[in-house]
């Protein structure tokens, strides 16, 4: 006989994965629009954000209905984690939108003559998102824990790029407006890594019932 409650939980899990896939795509496309100065792609990312927002609403709705059914233990954790993961994915979508907005504005201006390793920080942040979701799917808390220190690496890169941009602005005052767009876009990548770290912490809580947030500060 089918277990209807389990089916409801599985539907919730699938919805998160669909939402994650949309969020990852948005970040990928936003970075592509930024690096390749693709105006149309930037506009598309901004338009697609409402789909990710809608996923968040639907996941919360499913979770609230499941909570009325008195879930316990791992089922209870899955539902609360689903709500937090979806909130982090929605914010990842928002950051992609911010990157896309800056990318769109930058296409209206001449390129900034500075060599920024955007692809590196973007690929680090995106890999963290992907690995956090993989850890969720594979119930792999070791993999989830391994994501957390990688956030520092992204923070360091972000700082380095911000410093390069600050120096460039001092030397080229005419590029200040364009450099500010870059500062915001890179900061968004750093925030995406933060959200990936949050998701990884939730994965540990989901499968080990251990709250590791705010415990690994150095």
């Amino acid at each position: 006989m089918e277990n209807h409650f389990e089916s409801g939980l599985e539907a919730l899990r699938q919805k998160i994965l669909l939402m994650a896939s949309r969020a990852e795509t948005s970040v990928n496309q936003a970075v592509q629009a930024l690096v390749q100065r693709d105006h149309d792609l930037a506009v598309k990312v901004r338009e697609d954000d409402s789909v990710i927002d809608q996923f968040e609403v639907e996941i919360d709705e499913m979770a609230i209905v499941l909570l009325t059914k008195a879930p316990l233990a791992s089922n209870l954790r899955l539902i609360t984690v689903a709500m937090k993961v979806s909130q982090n994915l929605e914010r990842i979508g928002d950051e992609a939108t911010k990157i896309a907005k800056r990318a769109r504005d930058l296409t209206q201006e001449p390129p900034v003559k500075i060599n920024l390793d955007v692809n590196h920080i973007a690929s680090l942040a995106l890999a963290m998102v992907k690995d956090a979701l993989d850890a969720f799917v594979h119930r792999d808390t070791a993999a989830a824990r391994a994501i957390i220190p990688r956030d520092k690496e992204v923070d360091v890169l972000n700082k380095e790029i911000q410093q390069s941009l600050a120096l460039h602005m001092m030397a080229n005052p005419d590029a200040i407006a364009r450099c500010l767009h870059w500062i915001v876009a890179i900061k968004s990548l750093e925030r995406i890594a933060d959200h990936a770290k949050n998701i990884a912490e939730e994965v540990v809580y989901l499968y080990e019932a251990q709250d590791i947030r705010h415990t690994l500060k150095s």
Partner: protein
Amino acid sequence: MAETLIPKIATPATTLTAAKTGTPLIEIENLSLYYGAAKALKDISLKLEEKVVTAFIGPSGCGKSTLLRCLNRMNDLIDNVRIDGAIKIGSHDIYAANVDVIELRKRVGMVFQKSNPFPKSIYENVAYGLRLHGFQSKSELDGTVEQSLRNAALWDEVKDRLHSSALGLSGGQQQRLCIARAIAIKPEIILMDEPASALDPIATTRIEELILELKKDFTIVIVTHNMQQAARISNYTAFFYIGELVEFDVTAKIFTNPAKKQTEDYVTGRFG
């Protein structure tokens, strides 16, 4: 006159917003019931949709079981009961003078709080009602008994001991046997009066899963004191208090955002 409540949100109770208007199978119109001079049900109007689960909830004495028993005229068996108003099933007034109550109870089966198998074999418990309704041939009986036990998710557990006493089954199995007995004669509606309240959590889960399967073929009305059970299995919930229908809506709405404070207080355990 009380307003008839028909929430226009439907199956399954997994969303708060999806809307569909189902077909009402049971229409309760201005129903009042008196035990002697005491008015136990007060002007109840309610439309219950076909092939969904409707839960009746409320504190003890609120009238939910009394109303359930009105749906197949079980209250006729109690002295001093008087009913005003009407109950229509498929547009036929079940309290009309020409209604054959035996036929009505064939259409509207019932499962009680305490399992009540006959002191006969497992097979005979299911076959008994079939014989009363004219089934004669052994092959026909065998086929229907098996199908009923399968539909009640009991077949695999009893297929090797069909001719053993039903009283040797566990409480949960006995309750599923009673469900098999009820569905064997193919009613349209199954009334369940706290069918899992005497069972352990595992047996309760099996009954709940069974109810969710049965609603594909039957219209189910269930009385329960367990609000999480109502949330898990029902599409609609009606909340009663001292003989009155306080609120009727989609279950997800009742348990997340009830319209009436009284309902909120009850479902959150503040009274009752």
